[in-house]
């Protein structure tokens, strides 16, 4: 989700809608509105609909779904005598340019345009790594030939919103923009640059524009440069930008691009033809549709299409970069119909569902443990590595030391729980059944293991006190009498720890916790604890 802010009155005026109606229309276009103040609203746009990141795009889409304007709008495109010469820029190979006349920026349009640029940077631009945009006041560009090339880091210019001349290095080191984006495309001490023919800097992609060609209130026409590492993304970004500006009254000016093999002119304004079977779309949605219905629905989504027999050919406009194939068209048709006008179909039940073995085990042991008088607790899987012992999974990028590892036993999280409850009404008698993560020979090297922990904390506890409960839980769940063997686990007081055995296999541990361990967890009351391995027990019975 991407959020943009727009002037409410501008949007309502253009669409001739009330606020409530606008909310409804946008909801059916995957978007939600949230009032900010009297004048402004925030609109959430889904990540696939980059064409809706500006007012023009929202208006275009809304008019279609409202039935006010149908099909792809035909925007005026003129040729210009501007030339973009693209030289070899290894770190950021692709660059395209376009002119848009009649943009006529006022205070609000200027703010919207900068917002549009930033939102495209954050989405398709992958925070400028993949694509970056420079927008210039056309009037302030002195030459018709504009060059995309590299400059050394001591190359000088006045960066946007600065008064002094700076070198590229200084911009990278000293300005906020430089610190954030400066290192993306510098390579061999060279930085990409968009220059006038006379060598004056228009922008240093993907970092910053120059003050020289700054757009401002009153700017009439703009020159847009788009650079990046992926040609398709560069083309798409430019197409979305210019078509959205055209929707608001701009006239697209084509720029000659040369010395590169991939293009002669830009913007490319690519229209792809995507085919789909009418029958496939019908089946996908679950509604009987004939060809002309589908054509009409797609026109509401601002796409032109025609039929060749039972095959639908859709001319996907340059701004609908999210349409990949037939399934995407099916969604647009469903949207044009309205999701809430589609009657949900009952699917009926053919088979009975089945619980996992783990769920059945959980339920059996849980019932018995509650019967044994223990309170069920539920702790987090992530925990503090300081408390863990043995092999465990450590997070490579934890957000805090409290949660930097994955529990490998329920004993540790339970002792932590007990330490927080020393002022509770005694006795504290608890159990938890849950998964821990242990090394294994699975395809990831780790697996979940289902375990149960039981513990009693009181001013006086005994081994037998918990053993008697544990014993009954196991006997009742398995029908087998467990046996107990000495276990000199350091967790327990010597001579008071046991291994719980079932059919000769160790299926758990039980004992009075060693004060050394209690103190580590800041527990100052005696504790008797047991952990049993439910997965292993299930395999034995």
């Amino acid at each position, binding site marked *: 989700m991407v959020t943009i802010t727009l002037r409410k009155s501008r949007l309502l005026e253009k669409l001739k809608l009330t606020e409530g109606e606008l909310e409804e229309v946008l*909801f059916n*276009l*995957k978007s939600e509105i949230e009032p900010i103040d009297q004048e402004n609203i925030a609109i959430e746009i889904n*990540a696939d609909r980059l064409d809706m990141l500006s007012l023009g795009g929202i208006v275009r889409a809304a008019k279609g779904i409202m039935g006010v304007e149908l099909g792809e709008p035909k925007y005026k495109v003129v040729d210009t005598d501007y030339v973009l010469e693209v030289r070899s820029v290894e770190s950021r190979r692709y660059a395209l340019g376009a002119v848009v006349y009649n943009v006529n920026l006022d205070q609000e349009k200027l703010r919207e345009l900068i917002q549009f640029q930033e939102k495209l940077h954050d989405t398709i631009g*992958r925070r400028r*790594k*993949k694509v970056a945009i420079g927008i210039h006041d056309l009037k302030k560009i002195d030459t018709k030939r504009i060059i995309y090339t590299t400059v050394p880091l001591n190359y000088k210019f006045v960066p946007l919103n600065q008064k002094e001349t700076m070198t590229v290095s200084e911009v990278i080191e000293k300005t906020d923009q430089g610190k954030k984006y400066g290192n993306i495309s510098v390579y061999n001490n060279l930085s990409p640059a968009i220059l006038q023919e006379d060598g004056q800097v228009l922008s240093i992609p993907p970092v910053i524009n120059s003050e020289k060609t700054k757009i401002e209130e009153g700017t009439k026409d703009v020159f847009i440069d788009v650079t990046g590492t*992926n040609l*398709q993304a560069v083309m798409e970004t430019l197409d979305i930008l210019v078509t959205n500006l055209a929707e608001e009254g701009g006239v697209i000016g084509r720029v000659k691009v040369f010395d590169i093999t991939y293009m002669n002119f830009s913007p490319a304004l690519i229209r792809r033809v995507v085919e789909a079977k009418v029958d496939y779309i019908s089946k*996908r949605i*679950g509604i009987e549709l004939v060809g002309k219905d589908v054509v009409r629905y797609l026109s509401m989504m601002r796409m032109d299409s025609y039929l060749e027999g039972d095959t639908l050919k859709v001319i996907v406009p340059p701004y609908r970069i999210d349409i*990949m194939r037939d*399934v995407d068209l099916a*969604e647009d048709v469903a*949207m044009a119909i309205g999701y809430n006008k*589609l*009657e*949900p*179909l*009952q*699917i009926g*039940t*053919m*088979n*009975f*569902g*089945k*619980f*996992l073995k783990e*769920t059945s085990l959980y339920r059996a042991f849980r019932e018995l443990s*509650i019967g044994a008088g223990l*309170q*069920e*607790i*539920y*702790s987090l899987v*992530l925990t503090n590595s300081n408390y863990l012992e043995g092999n465990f999974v*450590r997070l*490579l*990028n934890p*957000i*805090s030391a409290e*949660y930097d590892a*994955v529990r490998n036993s329920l004993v540790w999280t339970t002792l*932590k729980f007990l330490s*927080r*409850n020393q002022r*509770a*009404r005694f006795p*504290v*008698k*608890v159990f938890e059944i849950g*998964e821990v*993560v242990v090394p294994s020979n*699975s395809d*990831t*090297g*780790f*697996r*979940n293991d289902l375990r149960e922990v039981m513990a009693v904390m009181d001013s006086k506890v005994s081994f037998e006190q918990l053993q008697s409960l544990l014993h009954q839980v196991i006997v009742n769940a398995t029908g087998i009498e467990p046996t107990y063997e000495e276990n000199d686990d350091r967790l327990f007081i010597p001579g008071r720890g046991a291994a719980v055995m079932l059919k000769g296999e160790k299926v758990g541990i039980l004992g009075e916790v060693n004060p050394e361990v209690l103190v580590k967890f800041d527990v100052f009351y005696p504790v008797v604890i047991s952990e049993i391995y439910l997965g292993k027990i299930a395999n034995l019975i």
Partner: protein
Amino acid sequence: MLSELELRVLSFIKDKGVTSSTEISASLGLPKSSVFSVVYHLASEGYVRIVSTKKERKLVLTEEGETRLKAGFPEEKLLKILSRGPVKVQEAKDVLGKDFEIAMSWAKKRGLINIQRGEITSLVQTYKAPERELLEKAKRGERLGVDEVSLLKGRNLVEEKEETEIEVEFLREPELRSALLFLTPELIRSGEWRKYEFKKFNVRALPPYVPIGKKHYFREFIERAKEVMISLGFSEVKSDYVEMEFYNFDMLFQPQDHPAREIHDSFRVEGKGEIKDEELLKKVKEVHEKWWNYKWDQEVALRLVMRSQTTATTARVLSTSPKPPARVFTIGKVFRPDAIDATHLIEFHQLDGLIVEEDFNLRKLLGVLKEIFAGLGIKEIKFKPAYFPFTEPSVEVYGWIDRLGWVEMAGAGLLRPEVTEPAGVYSPAGAWGLGLDRLAMLFLGVKDIRDLYSDDIEFLRSRKVEAQW
């Protein structure tokens, strides 16, 4: 069963063998009336025997008698004044006030003083009024001679009253307390219990605290959600927390430079996974490169993460090429780095479902979602078109909550062919995921998500068990 008081009195009588009501009253500091009622009760229960009951005229101290005993007799006061030498009559009168006349009269009568020229002189060294000793005897109930009685009466220090006096004799020990507190098998079998009275309890008193075993309220919610899915014909599946990016992202058609795959959106784990299905790897690589137009890196796909969505489990199921019709669901923990606050935690539960059926479509998917939410207790839902990389068409489900309005509750869609086909699944497939924690908060009235994993046992003990939801 005897009361505390009865036991005290019985024990005193036992020590004395034979005693009287007056003696009991004086020694135990009890009013006579209490002594009578206790002794009569003990006698009726057979612990003591009343030897005799006498109505007796007894001397009782008057108010005057009590006062004099405490404060001293007037003539004693006079002689105390005289002990430092002769005193003028007027002076003695001033000191003694209204007692003066009585003091002079008794002192003269007993020959204790001499009066000459208006001056009083003591004739004795010290003086203690004989009445004092007599009064003390009378108070203890001792007998006095006739003259003595008339002396005291004459000075209005005592009066005669008729009183009942009982003499009582000890017969038998009180029974042990425990036998009357607890009914024992022996008492029942022998019939002995008939001989006893059960101690009456204060049944209005509140009991002491005893912890009982109770299900965790949030886990109970999760178990009920499982039951909803089972009842709709879905079978439960699971997969592990540590997952390969391949199943968490790549198979779900999320390009490797997708913002949701950035390091701050999932927890990384050291290590590298292994996928033996070369065909699957190849096909996933193909669809990524074809549609997302970049170079797919297998090493990235094999990296380990804590799964960030249970759709990873769905991807695992798909990778086994399930044959339609297939309906599965999973409920499990997912992990995402986030700032922890009242509505965010770094681990939470998702319910993911997958349905693969020959003629499955969007309307059927909406139908499944409607049934699931009805089962969970959300009666009214609406659908919003949405975007997820792995589904098309995609839908978000909004549910109506009375005090909140429409709340986003789930994401769903028909899986893209780019997701199903590499796994060899060619039938339509629907999938959805919903966050259970937020839903549980709505249903359980929990304001802070951390309370779902509370480490405060008193909070858990205080949770009422939900009878319905």
